[in-house]
Protein backbone atom coordinates (compact mmCIF):
# COMPACT_ATOMS: atom_id res chain seq x y z
CA UNK A 1 0.00 0.00 0.00
CA UNK A 2 1.43 3.38 -0.95
CA UNK A 3 2.23 5.69 1.87
CA UNK A 4 -0.36 8.24 0.66
CA UNK A 5 -3.14 5.67 0.91
CA UNK A 6 -2.07 4.73 4.40
CA UNK A 7 -2.16 8.35 5.37
CA UNK A 8 -5.70 8.84 3.94
CA UNK A 9 -6.99 5.71 5.68
CA UNK A 10 -5.42 6.83 8.92
CA UNK A 11 -6.95 10.25 8.50
CA UNK A 12 -10.37 8.78 7.81
CA UNK A 13 -10.07 6.45 10.80
CA UNK A 14 -9.01 9.33 12.97
CA UNK A 15 -11.92 11.50 11.83
CA UNK A 16 -14.38 8.64 12.28
CA UNK A 17 -13.12 7.78 15.74
CA UNK A 18 -13.19 11.43 16.65
CA UNK A 19 -16.75 11.68 15.33
CA UNK A 20 -17.70 8.57 17.25
CA UNK A 21 -16.10 9.88 20.39
CA UNK A 22 -18.27 13.08 20.26
CA UNK A 23 -21.63 12.44 22.18
CA UNK A 24 -24.71 12.45 20.02
CA UNK A 25 -27.70 14.72 20.92
CA UNK A 26 -29.63 11.83 22.50
CA UNK A 27 -26.59 10.75 24.42
CA UNK A 28 -26.12 14.29 25.65
CA UNK A 29 -29.70 14.31 26.90
CA UNK A 30 -29.15 11.01 28.68
CA UNK A 31 -26.04 12.42 30.23
CA UNK A 32 -27.89 15.46 31.52
CA UNK A 33 -30.66 13.25 32.92
CA UNK A 34 -28.10 11.18 34.71
CA UNK A 35 -26.56 14.33 36.17
CA UNK A 36 -30.00 15.56 37.36
CA UNK A 37 -30.69 12.15 38.89
CA UNK A 38 -27.40 12.25 40.70
CA UNK A 39 -28.10 15.74 42.04
CA UNK A 40 -31.63 14.68 43.12
CA UNK A 41 -30.23 11.63 44.87
CA UNK A 42 -27.70 13.83 46.67
CA UNK A 43 -30.47 16.25 47.67
CA UNK A 44 -32.70 13.45 48.94
CA UNK A 45 -29.87 11.97 50.91
CA UNK A 46 -29.17 15.37 52.40
CA UNK A 47 -32.83 15.79 53.39
CA UNK A 48 -32.88 12.32 54.92
CA UNK A 49 -29.73 13.08 56.87
CA UNK A 50 -31.21 16.36 58.01
CA UNK A 51 -34.42 14.65 59.13
CA UNK A 52 -32.46 11.96 60.90
CA UNK A 53 -30.50 14.67 62.63
CA UNK A 54 -33.68 16.50 63.60
CA UNK A 55 -35.17 13.27 64.89
CA UNK A 56 -32.09 12.47 66.88
CA UNK A 57 -32.17 15.95 68.36
CA UNK A 58 -35.83 15.52 69.22
CA UNK A 59 -35.12 12.12 70.70
CA UNK A 60 -32.26 13.40 72.72
CA UNK A 61 -34.44 16.25 73.97
CA UNK A 62 -37.18 13.82 74.88
CA UNK A 63 -35.07 11.31 76.72
CA UNK A 64 -37.29 9.54 79.19
CA UNK A 65 -36.69 9.13 82.89
CA UNK A 66 -37.43 5.89 84.71
CA UNK A 67 -39.71 5.68 87.72
CA UNK A 68 -40.07 2.46 89.67
CA UNK A 69 -42.73 1.92 92.28
CA UNK A 70 -43.84 -1.50 93.46
CA UNK A 71 -44.05 -3.66 90.37
CA UNK A 72 -44.52 -0.74 87.99
CA UNK A 73 -41.76 0.44 85.67
CA UNK A 74 -42.66 3.71 84.05
CA UNK A 75 -40.78 5.74 81.48
CA UNK A 76 -41.71 9.36 81.79
CA UNK A 77 -40.80 12.55 79.98
CA UNK A 78 -38.59 14.62 82.34
CA UNK A 79 -40.80 17.68 81.92
CA UNK A 80 -43.75 15.94 83.55
CA UNK A 81 -41.88 13.63 85.89
CA UNK A 82 -42.75 15.60 89.02
CA UNK A 83 -46.46 15.45 88.23
CA UNK A 84 -46.46 11.77 87.37
CA UNK A 85 -44.14 10.36 90.03
CA UNK A 86 -46.56 10.53 92.95
CA UNK A 87 -49.32 8.87 90.95
CA UNK A 88 -47.11 5.97 89.92
CA UNK A 89 -46.70 5.08 93.59
CA UNK A 90 -50.43 5.46 94.19
CA UNK A 91 -51.25 3.25 91.20
CA UNK A 92 -48.73 0.62 92.25
CA UNK A 93 -50.28 0.48 95.72
CA UNK A 94 -53.78 0.22 94.25
CA UNK A 95 -52.75 -2.56 91.90
CA UNK A 96 -51.07 -4.43 94.70
CA UNK A 97 -54.22 -4.34 96.81
CA UNK A 98 -56.48 -5.26 93.88
CA UNK A 99 -54.59 -7.96 92.03
CA UNK A 100 -52.18 -9.09 94.73
CA UNK A 101 -49.14 -11.09 93.62
CA UNK A 102 -50.27 -10.96 89.98
CA UNK A 103 -49.04 -7.35 89.99
CA UNK A 104 -45.47 -8.71 89.99
CA UNK A 105 -46.03 -9.77 86.39
CA UNK A 106 -46.00 -6.11 85.44
CA UNK A 107 -42.35 -5.87 86.47
CA UNK A 108 -41.22 -7.22 83.11
CA UNK A 109 -43.21 -4.63 81.19
CA UNK A 110 -43.00 -0.90 80.66
CA UNK A 111 -45.52 1.88 80.81
CA UNK A 112 -44.67 5.09 79.00
CA UNK A 113 -45.94 8.55 79.88
CA UNK A 114 -44.79 11.10 77.35
CA UNK A 115 -45.91 14.24 75.63
CA UNK A 116 -47.23 14.06 72.12
CA UNK A 117 -44.87 15.52 69.55
CA UNK A 118 -47.65 16.71 67.28
CA UNK A 119 -49.86 18.53 69.77
CA UNK A 120 -49.58 20.98 72.59
CA UNK A 121 -47.10 20.47 75.38
CA UNK A 122 -49.95 19.74 77.78
CA UNK A 123 -51.14 16.69 75.88
CA UNK A 124 -49.75 13.40 77.11
CA UNK A 125 -49.89 9.81 75.92
CA UNK A 126 -49.97 6.97 78.39
CA UNK A 127 -49.06 3.73 76.72
CA UNK A 128 -47.97 0.21 77.44
CA UNK A 129 -44.97 -1.43 75.84
CA UNK A 130 -45.99 -4.95 75.00
CA UNK A 131 -43.16 -7.40 75.53
CA UNK A 132 -42.25 -9.99 72.92
CA UNK A 133 -43.50 -13.46 73.66
CA UNK A 134 -45.91 -16.18 72.67
CA UNK A 135 -48.93 -14.39 74.13
CA UNK A 136 -47.99 -10.86 73.30
CA UNK A 137 -46.88 -9.36 70.04
CA UNK A 138 -44.05 -10.98 68.13
CA UNK A 139 -41.93 -7.89 68.73
CA UNK A 140 -41.87 -5.29 71.44
CA UNK A 141 -44.57 -2.76 70.63
CA UNK A 142 -46.01 0.36 72.19
CA UNK A 143 -49.78 0.34 72.54
CA UNK A 144 -51.41 3.66 73.23
CA UNK A 145 -53.73 3.33 76.20
CA UNK A 146 -54.95 6.84 76.76
CA UNK A 147 -54.12 10.37 75.75
CA UNK A 148 -55.42 13.77 76.61
CA UNK A 149 -54.71 16.96 78.51
CA UNK A 150 -52.37 16.29 81.41
CA UNK A 151 -54.38 16.13 84.59
CA UNK A 152 -54.09 14.16 87.82
CA UNK A 153 -57.14 12.06 87.01
CA UNK A 154 -55.88 11.28 83.50
CA UNK A 155 -52.55 10.08 84.82
CA UNK A 156 -54.08 7.83 87.48
CA UNK A 157 -56.73 6.50 85.09
CA UNK A 158 -54.21 5.99 82.33
CA UNK A 159 -51.68 4.18 84.49
CA UNK A 160 -54.33 1.90 85.97
CA UNK A 161 -55.94 1.25 82.60
CA UNK A 162 -52.65 0.49 80.91
CA UNK A 163 -51.49 -1.74 83.76
CA UNK A 164 -54.70 -3.75 83.88
CA UNK A 165 -54.72 -4.07 80.09
CA UNK A 166 -51.19 -5.40 80.25
CA UNK A 167 -52.13 -7.86 82.96
CA UNK A 168 -55.20 -9.01 81.03
CA UNK A 169 -53.01 -10.20 78.18
CA UNK A 170 -51.71 -12.88 80.55
CA UNK A 171 -55.18 -14.38 81.08
CA UNK A 172 -56.10 -17.31 78.84
CA UNK A 173 -57.63 -16.40 75.51
CA UNK A 174 -60.82 -18.44 75.91
CA UNK A 175 -61.70 -16.57 79.08
CA UNK A 176 -60.99 -13.19 77.47
CA UNK A 177 -63.20 -14.09 74.50
CA UNK A 178 -66.01 -15.01 76.91
CA UNK A 179 -65.46 -11.75 78.81
CA UNK A 180 -65.01 -9.76 75.59
CA UNK A 181 -62.99 -7.12 77.44
CA UNK A 182 -60.06 -6.71 79.82
CA UNK A 183 -60.34 -8.26 83.26
CA UNK A 184 -61.26 -5.53 85.70
CA UNK A 185 -60.91 -6.23 89.40
CA UNK A 186 -62.87 -3.11 90.38
CA UNK A 187 -65.83 -3.42 92.72
CA UNK A 188 -69.16 -3.46 90.91
CA UNK A 189 -71.23 -0.40 91.70
CA UNK A 190 -74.68 -0.70 93.23
CA UNK A 191 -76.09 1.00 90.15
CA UNK A 192 -74.53 -1.65 87.91
CA UNK A 193 -76.13 -4.41 89.99
CA UNK A 194 -79.56 -2.77 89.73
CA UNK A 195 -79.19 -2.37 85.97
CA UNK A 196 -78.13 -6.00 85.72
CA UNK A 197 -81.14 -7.10 87.75
CA UNK A 198 -83.43 -5.05 85.53
CA UNK A 199 -81.85 -6.57 82.44
CA UNK A 200 -82.17 -10.09 83.78
CA UNK A 201 -85.82 -9.87 84.83
CA UNK A 202 -86.66 -8.11 81.56
CA UNK A 203 -84.94 -10.74 79.42
CA UNK A 204 -86.94 -12.68 76.85
CA UNK A 205 -85.02 -15.83 77.80
CA UNK A 206 -86.64 -18.11 80.37
CA UNK A 207 -83.26 -19.13 81.76
CA UNK A 208 -82.49 -15.54 82.82
CA UNK A 209 -85.67 -15.34 84.87
CA UNK A 210 -85.09 -18.82 86.32
CA UNK A 211 -81.58 -17.72 87.24
CA UNK A 212 -83.03 -14.71 89.05
CA UNK A 213 -85.30 -17.13 90.94
CA UNK A 214 -82.25 -19.06 92.15
CA UNK A 215 -81.80 -21.87 89.59
CA UNK A 216 -78.00 -22.18 89.34
CA UNK A 217 -78.10 -24.37 86.24
CA UNK A 218 -80.10 -21.62 84.57
CA UNK A 219 -77.45 -19.13 85.74
CA UNK A 220 -74.76 -21.24 84.05
CA UNK A 221 -76.77 -21.13 80.85
CA UNK A 222 -77.51 -17.42 81.19
CA UNK A 223 -73.79 -16.71 81.53
CA UNK A 224 -72.99 -19.23 78.75
CA UNK A 225 -70.73 -21.16 81.08
CA UNK A 226 -72.14 -24.34 79.55
CA UNK A 227 -72.48 -24.92 75.82
CA UNK A 228 -75.89 -24.12 74.38
CA UNK A 229 -76.65 -26.32 71.38
CA UNK A 230 -80.11 -25.06 70.44
CA UNK A 231 -80.72 -21.60 71.90
CA UNK A 232 -84.30 -21.50 70.61
CA UNK A 233 -85.36 -24.39 72.84
CA UNK A 234 -82.78 -24.35 75.63
CA UNK A 235 -82.95 -20.66 76.50
CA UNK A 236 -86.54 -19.73 75.68
CA UNK A 237 -89.97 -20.94 76.64
CA UNK A 238 -92.84 -20.52 74.16
CA UNK A 239 -93.79 -17.04 75.37
CA UNK A 240 -90.16 -15.90 75.37
CA UNK A 241 -89.63 -17.24 71.87
CA UNK A 242 -92.63 -15.29 70.63
CA UNK A 243 -91.34 -12.15 72.32
CA UNK A 244 -87.84 -12.71 70.95
CA UNK A 245 -89.18 -13.04 67.42
CA UNK A 246 -91.83 -10.33 67.44
CA UNK A 247 -90.47 -7.59 69.72
CA UNK A 248 -89.30 -4.62 67.68
CA UNK A 249 -89.96 -6.45 64.43
CA UNK A 250 -91.88 -3.97 62.31
CA UNK A 251 -91.72 -5.84 58.99
CA UNK A 252 -92.47 -9.47 59.84
CA UNK A 253 -92.48 -12.13 57.13
CA UNK A 254 -95.08 -14.93 56.93
CA UNK A 255 -93.36 -17.15 59.51
CA UNK A 256 -92.97 -14.28 61.95
CA UNK A 257 -96.61 -13.29 61.51
CA UNK A 258 -97.61 -16.90 62.25
CA UNK A 259 -95.41 -16.76 65.35
CA UNK A 260 -97.03 -13.53 66.47
CA UNK A 261 -100.43 -15.22 66.05
CA UNK A 262 -99.40 -17.96 68.46
CA UNK A 263 -97.91 -20.71 66.27
CA UNK A 264 -94.99 -21.99 68.37
CA UNK A 265 -93.57 -24.11 65.53
CA UNK A 266 -93.27 -20.92 63.49
CA UNK A 267 -91.67 -19.20 66.49
CA UNK A 268 -89.11 -22.01 66.72
CA UNK A 269 -88.23 -21.69 63.05
CA UNK A 270 -88.02 -17.90 63.24
CA UNK A 271 -86.01 -17.95 66.48
CA UNK A 272 -83.48 -20.43 65.06
CA UNK A 273 -83.16 -18.25 61.99
CA UNK A 274 -82.55 -15.16 64.12
CA UNK A 275 -79.95 -17.01 66.19
CA UNK A 276 -78.18 -18.15 63.02
CA UNK A 277 -78.12 -14.53 61.83
CA UNK A 278 -76.34 -13.61 65.05
CA UNK A 279 -79.16 -11.85 66.87
CA UNK A 280 -77.82 -10.92 70.29
CA UNK A 281 -78.88 -13.44 72.95
CA UNK A 282 -75.41 -13.81 74.37
CA UNK A 283 -74.92 -12.65 77.97
CA UNK A 284 -74.43 -8.94 78.36
CA UNK A 285 -71.00 -7.56 79.14
CA UNK A 286 -72.30 -6.48 82.54
CA UNK A 287 -73.30 -10.08 83.38
CA UNK A 288 -69.91 -11.62 82.62
CA UNK A 289 -68.08 -8.69 84.17
CA UNK A 290 -69.99 -8.95 87.45
CA UNK A 291 -69.52 -12.74 87.54
CA UNK A 292 -65.76 -12.28 87.06
CA UNK A 293 -65.55 -9.59 89.70
CA UNK A 294 -67.55 -11.76 92.11
CA UNK A 295 -65.07 -14.61 91.60
CA UNK A 296 -62.10 -12.28 92.12
CA UNK A 297 -63.66 -10.88 95.26
CA UNK A 298 -64.32 -14.33 96.71
CA UNK A 299 -60.81 -15.48 95.82
CA UNK A 300 -59.06 -12.63 97.65
CA UNK A 301 -55.50 -11.46 96.97
CA UNK A 302 -54.40 -14.58 95.09
CA UNK A 303 -57.50 -14.68 92.88
CA UNK A 304 -56.06 -12.79 89.91
CA UNK A 305 -52.90 -14.87 89.87
CA UNK A 306 -54.99 -18.07 89.93
CA UNK A 307 -57.10 -16.69 87.08
CA UNK A 308 -53.97 -16.09 85.01
CA UNK A 309 -52.68 -19.58 85.74
CA UNK A 310 -55.99 -21.23 84.90
CA UNK A 311 -56.03 -22.77 81.46
CA UNK A 312 -59.56 -24.16 81.64
CA UNK A 313 -62.82 -23.01 80.09
CA UNK A 314 -64.46 -19.84 81.53
CA UNK A 315 -66.45 -21.89 84.09
CA UNK A 316 -63.28 -23.55 85.37
CA UNK A 317 -61.35 -20.27 85.28
CA UNK A 318 -63.98 -18.60 87.46
CA UNK A 319 -63.87 -21.46 89.95
CA UNK A 320 -60.05 -21.41 89.92
CA UNK A 321 -59.96 -17.66 90.52
CA UNK A 322 -62.45 -17.85 93.38
CA UNK A 323 -60.85 -20.95 94.86
CA UNK A 324 -64.29 -22.46 95.44
CA UNK A 325 -66.67 -24.50 93.23
CA UNK A 326 -68.43 -22.60 90.47
CA UNK A 327 -71.85 -23.02 92.11
CA UNK A 328 -70.60 -21.16 95.18
CA UNK A 329 -69.51 -18.27 92.95
CA UNK A 330 -72.86 -18.26 91.18
CA UNK A 331 -74.74 -18.34 94.51
CA UNK A 332 -72.93 -15.19 95.66
CA UNK A 333 -73.43 -13.55 92.25
CA UNK A 334 -77.12 -14.38 92.29
CA UNK A 335 -77.50 -13.16 95.88
CA UNK A 336 -75.85 -9.83 95.01
CA UNK A 337 -78.06 -9.58 91.96
CA UNK A 338 -81.21 -9.92 94.03
CA UNK A 339 -80.24 -8.01 97.13
CA UNK A 340 -78.06 -5.10 96.01
CA UNK A 341 -80.43 -2.17 95.97
CA UNK A 342 -80.05 1.53 95.50
CA UNK A 343 -81.96 3.62 98.02
CA UNK A 344 -84.87 5.50 96.51
CA UNK A 345 -83.74 8.42 94.39
CA UNK A 346 -86.97 10.23 95.19
CA UNK A 347 -85.83 11.63 98.49
CA UNK A 348 -82.53 12.29 100.18
CA UNK A 349 -81.27 14.41 103.02
CA UNK A 350 -79.96 16.92 100.46
CA UNK A 351 -83.32 17.28 98.72
CA UNK A 352 -85.13 17.62 102.04
CA UNK A 353 -82.64 20.16 103.43
CA UNK A 354 -82.61 22.39 100.34
CA UNK A 355 -86.42 22.28 100.08
CA UNK A 356 -86.92 23.21 103.72
CA UNK A 357 -84.41 26.02 103.34
CA UNK A 358 -86.27 27.52 100.40
CA UNK A 359 -89.65 27.09 102.10
CA UNK A 360 -88.28 29.03 105.08
CA UNK A 361 -86.79 31.74 102.84
CA UNK A 362 -89.99 32.23 100.85
CA UNK A 363 -92.08 32.13 104.04
CA UNK A 364 -89.87 34.82 105.61
CA UNK A 365 -90.09 36.97 102.46
CA UNK A 366 -93.88 36.78 102.45
CA UNK A 367 -94.00 37.91 106.09
CA UNK A 368 -91.90 40.95 105.22
CA UNK A 369 -93.98 41.99 102.22
CA UNK A 370 -95.02 45.62 101.93
CA UNK A 371 -98.32 45.03 100.18
CA UNK A 372 -100.29 46.97 102.78
CA UNK A 373 -98.06 50.01 102.74
Amino acid at each position, binding site marked *: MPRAHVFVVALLLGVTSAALSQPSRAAQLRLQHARVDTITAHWQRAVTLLQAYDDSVARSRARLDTIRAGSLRVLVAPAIRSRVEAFVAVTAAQLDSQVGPAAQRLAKQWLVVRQRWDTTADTVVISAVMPPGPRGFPKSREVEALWGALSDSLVIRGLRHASLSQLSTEVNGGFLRWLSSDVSPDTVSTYAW*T*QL*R*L*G*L*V*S*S*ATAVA*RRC*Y*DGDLIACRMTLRLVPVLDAATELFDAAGRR*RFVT*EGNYSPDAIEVACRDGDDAACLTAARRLVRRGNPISPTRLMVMTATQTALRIGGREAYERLIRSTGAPAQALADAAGVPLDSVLKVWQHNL*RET*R*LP*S*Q*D*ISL*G*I*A*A*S*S*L*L*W*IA*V*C*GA*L*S*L*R*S*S*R*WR
Partner: protein
Amino acid sequence: MFRAIVWMQWKSTRALSLLTTIIAFALPLASLQLGRSAASASGFVAAMQAFGAAYALLAALVGLLVALGAWRPDHSGRHVYALSLPVPRSRYAMFRFGAGLLFLVPTIAALLVGALLVSVSPIPEGLHAFPVALTLRFALASLVAYAIFFAIASSTNRTAGLIIAIFAGIIFSQYLLAVFADGERTVDVLGAVLDFVFVRPGILSVFAGRWMLIDA
Protein backbone atom coordinates in the same frame (compact mmCIF):
# COMPACT_ATOMS: atom_id res chain seq x y z
CA MET B 1 -108.94 34.00 114.07
CA PHE B 2 -106.97 31.17 112.53
CA ARG B 3 -110.17 29.09 112.27
CA ALA B 4 -111.93 31.98 110.56
CA ILE B 5 -109.11 32.27 108.05
CA VAL B 6 -109.16 28.52 107.44
CA TRP B 7 -112.92 28.69 106.87
CA MET B 8 -112.55 31.57 104.41
CA GLN B 9 -109.80 29.79 102.62
CA TRP B 10 -111.77 26.53 102.53
CA LYS B 11 -114.54 28.32 100.70
CA SER B 12 -112.17 29.67 98.07
CA THR B 13 -110.02 26.55 97.70
CA ARG B 14 -112.23 23.50 98.26
CA ALA B 15 -113.16 22.85 94.63
CA LEU B 16 -109.57 23.02 93.42
CA SER B 17 -108.35 21.06 96.40
CA LEU B 18 -110.86 18.31 95.71
CA LEU B 19 -109.81 18.17 92.08
CA THR B 20 -106.10 17.88 92.85
CA THR B 21 -106.85 15.28 95.54
CA ILE B 22 -108.62 13.08 93.01
CA ILE B 23 -105.80 13.51 90.48
CA ALA B 24 -103.18 12.71 93.13
CA PHE B 25 -105.00 9.51 94.07
CA ALA B 26 -105.44 8.47 90.43
CA LEU B 27 -101.88 9.19 89.24
CA PRO B 28 -100.14 6.15 90.81
CA LEU B 29 -102.98 3.89 89.73
CA ALA B 30 -102.79 5.21 86.17
CA SER B 31 -99.03 4.66 86.10
CA LEU B 32 -99.55 1.06 87.28
CA GLN B 33 -102.14 0.52 84.57
CA LEU B 34 -99.73 1.80 81.92
CA GLY B 35 -96.87 -0.23 83.37
CA ARG B 36 -98.89 -3.44 83.23
CA SER B 37 -99.22 -3.13 79.48
CA ALA B 38 -95.42 -3.27 79.12
CA ALA B 39 -93.90 -6.54 77.90
CA SER B 40 -90.98 -6.54 80.30
CA ALA B 41 -89.78 -5.18 83.62
CA SER B 42 -87.71 -2.53 81.87
CA GLY B 43 -90.83 -1.44 79.98
CA PHE B 44 -92.64 -1.24 83.32
CA VAL B 45 -89.90 0.99 84.74
CA ALA B 46 -90.03 3.16 81.62
CA ALA B 47 -93.79 3.62 82.12
CA MET B 48 -93.19 4.65 85.73
CA GLN B 49 -90.53 7.08 84.60
CA ALA B 50 -92.91 8.60 82.08
CA PHE B 51 -95.20 9.51 84.97
CA GLY B 52 -92.40 11.26 86.86
CA ALA B 53 -93.09 14.57 85.16
CA ALA B 54 -96.78 14.28 86.03
CA TYR B 55 -96.01 14.10 89.77
CA ALA B 56 -93.74 17.16 89.51
CA LEU B 57 -96.34 19.11 87.54
CA LEU B 58 -99.11 18.18 89.96
CA ALA B 59 -96.96 19.30 92.91
CA ALA B 60 -96.33 22.66 91.22
CA LEU B 61 -100.00 23.04 90.32
CA VAL B 62 -101.22 22.25 93.85
CA GLY B 63 -98.74 24.75 95.29
CA LEU B 64 -99.82 27.44 92.83
CA LEU B 65 -103.57 26.95 93.29
CA VAL B 66 -103.46 26.79 97.07
CA ALA B 67 -101.16 29.83 97.29
CA LEU B 68 -103.39 31.90 95.04
CA GLY B 69 -106.46 30.64 96.91
CA ALA B 70 -104.87 31.71 100.20
CA TRP B 71 -104.72 35.36 99.16
CA ARG B 72 -107.82 35.48 96.96
CA PRO B 73 -110.26 36.72 99.67
CA ASP B 74 -107.83 39.52 100.60
CA HIS B 75 -107.17 40.51 97.01
CA SER B 76 -110.85 40.58 96.14
CA GLY B 77 -111.71 42.51 99.33
CA ARG B 78 -108.80 44.93 98.79
CA HIS B 79 -107.32 43.88 102.17
CA VAL B 80 -110.01 45.75 104.12
CA TYR B 81 -110.70 42.75 106.37
CA ALA B 82 -107.03 42.22 107.05
CA LEU B 83 -106.41 45.89 107.82
CA SER B 84 -109.33 45.92 110.24
CA LEU B 85 -107.78 43.15 112.36
CA PRO B 86 -105.82 44.11 115.50
CA VAL B 87 -102.80 41.96 114.55
CA PRO B 88 -99.52 42.81 112.88
CA ARG B 89 -99.31 42.08 109.20
CA SER B 90 -96.63 39.41 109.65
CA ARG B 91 -98.81 37.47 112.09
CA TYR B 92 -101.73 37.67 109.71
CA ALA B 93 -99.57 36.44 106.82
CA MET B 94 -98.39 33.58 109.01
CA PHE B 95 -101.98 32.53 109.64
CA ARG B 96 -102.68 32.66 105.95
CA PHE B 97 -99.55 30.61 105.25
CA GLY B 98 -100.50 28.00 107.87
CA ALA B 99 -104.08 27.78 106.63
CA GLY B 100 -102.84 27.23 103.08
CA LEU B 101 -100.55 24.43 104.27
CA LEU B 102 -103.58 22.59 105.63
CA PHE B 103 -105.09 22.48 102.15
CA LEU B 104 -102.03 20.75 100.77
CA VAL B 105 -102.58 17.84 103.14
CA PRO B 106 -105.54 16.14 101.39
CA THR B 107 -103.66 16.01 98.07
CA ILE B 108 -100.53 14.62 99.70
CA ALA B 109 -102.54 12.07 101.67
CA ALA B 110 -104.39 11.00 98.52
CA LEU B 111 -101.09 10.45 96.73
CA LEU B 112 -99.83 8.36 99.64
CA VAL B 113 -102.95 6.18 99.60
CA GLY B 114 -102.73 5.71 95.82
CA ALA B 115 -99.02 4.90 96.00
CA LEU B 116 -99.53 2.43 98.85
CA LEU B 117 -102.26 0.69 96.86
CA VAL B 118 -99.86 0.34 93.93
CA SER B 119 -97.09 -0.97 96.18
CA VAL B 120 -99.29 -3.83 97.43
CA SER B 121 -100.40 -4.70 93.88
CA PRO B 122 -98.49 -7.36 91.94
CA ILE B 123 -95.50 -5.80 90.18
CA PRO B 124 -92.80 -7.47 88.03
CA GLU B 125 -90.25 -9.49 89.95
CA GLY B 126 -87.03 -7.68 90.73
CA LEU B 127 -88.68 -4.26 91.03
CA HIS B 128 -89.38 -2.38 94.24
CA ALA B 129 -91.98 0.22 95.19
CA PHE B 130 -91.09 3.43 97.03
CA PRO B 131 -94.50 4.89 98.04
CA VAL B 132 -93.34 6.78 101.13
CA ALA B 133 -90.24 8.28 99.49
CA LEU B 134 -92.28 9.47 96.50
CA THR B 135 -94.94 10.98 98.75
CA LEU B 136 -92.33 12.76 100.85
CA ARG B 137 -90.80 14.26 97.75
CA PHE B 138 -94.22 15.27 96.45
CA ALA B 139 -94.98 16.90 99.80
CA LEU B 140 -91.72 18.87 99.76
CA ALA B 141 -92.17 19.91 96.12
CA SER B 142 -95.73 21.10 96.67
CA LEU B 143 -94.60 22.96 99.79
CA VAL B 144 -91.79 24.67 97.87
CA ALA B 145 -94.15 25.65 95.07
CA TYR B 146 -96.70 26.86 97.61
CA ALA B 147 -94.10 28.94 99.47
CA ILE B 148 -92.81 30.54 96.26
CA PHE B 149 -96.24 31.44 94.91
CA PHE B 150 -97.44 32.52 98.35
CA ALA B 151 -94.49 34.91 98.58
CA ILE B 152 -95.13 36.27 95.08
CA ALA B 153 -98.89 36.63 95.71
CA SER B 154 -98.26 38.43 99.00
CA SER B 155 -95.90 40.91 97.43
CA THR B 156 -96.77 44.16 95.70
CA ASN B 157 -97.62 44.24 92.03
CA ARG B 158 -94.30 45.99 91.52
CA THR B 159 -92.33 43.10 93.05
CA ALA B 160 -94.25 40.51 91.04
CA GLY B 161 -93.59 42.57 87.90
CA LEU B 162 -89.93 42.80 88.80
CA ILE B 163 -89.62 39.01 89.11
CA ILE B 164 -91.29 38.52 85.74
CA ALA B 165 -89.06 41.24 84.23
CA ILE B 166 -85.92 39.52 85.53
CA PHE B 167 -86.92 36.21 83.91
CA ALA B 168 -87.86 37.96 80.67
CA GLY B 169 -84.52 39.83 80.76
CA ILE B 170 -82.57 36.58 81.14
CA ILE B 171 -84.36 34.97 78.19
CA PHE B 172 -83.95 38.12 76.06
CA SER B 173 -80.25 38.46 76.90
CA GLN B 174 -79.74 34.81 75.97
CA TYR B 175 -81.45 35.53 72.66
CA LEU B 176 -79.23 38.55 72.01
CA LEU B 177 -76.10 36.58 72.90
CA ALA B 178 -77.14 33.82 70.52
CA VAL B 179 -77.78 36.31 67.72
CA PHE B 180 -74.49 38.19 68.14
CA ALA B 181 -72.42 35.17 69.17
CA ASP B 182 -68.90 34.93 67.77
CA GLY B 183 -68.81 31.44 66.30
CA GLU B 184 -68.89 28.79 68.96
CA ARG B 185 -68.14 31.16 71.82
CA THR B 186 -71.71 31.53 73.01
CA VAL B 187 -72.29 32.50 76.61
CA ASP B 188 -75.02 30.27 78.04
CA VAL B 189 -76.73 32.61 80.50
CA LEU B 190 -80.00 30.70 80.52
CA GLY B 191 -78.21 27.40 81.11
CA ALA B 192 -76.32 28.86 84.05
CA VAL B 193 -79.52 30.27 85.53
CA LEU B 194 -81.35 26.98 85.04
CA ASP B 195 -78.46 25.14 86.68
CA PHE B 196 -78.62 27.56 89.58
CA VAL B 197 -82.36 27.02 89.91
CA PHE B 198 -82.70 23.29 89.24
CA VAL B 199 -79.39 21.84 90.46
CA ARG B 200 -79.23 21.25 94.19
CA PRO B 201 -79.42 23.36 96.32
CA GLY B 202 -81.35 25.45 93.79
CA ILE B 203 -84.81 26.65 94.69
CA LEU B 204 -86.55 24.23 92.29
CA SER B 205 -84.07 21.36 92.62
CA VAL B 206 -86.67 19.22 94.35
CA PHE B 207 -88.56 19.11 91.04
CA ALA B 208 -85.57 17.92 89.02
CA GLY B 209 -84.42 14.32 88.65
CA ARG B 210 -86.30 11.05 88.60
CA TRP B 211 -89.62 10.61 90.37
CA MET B 212 -90.04 6.85 90.61
CA LEU B 213 -92.83 5.06 92.41
CA ILE B 214 -91.43 1.70 91.25
CA ASP B 215 -87.79 1.16 90.31
CA ALA B 216 -85.19 -1.59 90.01
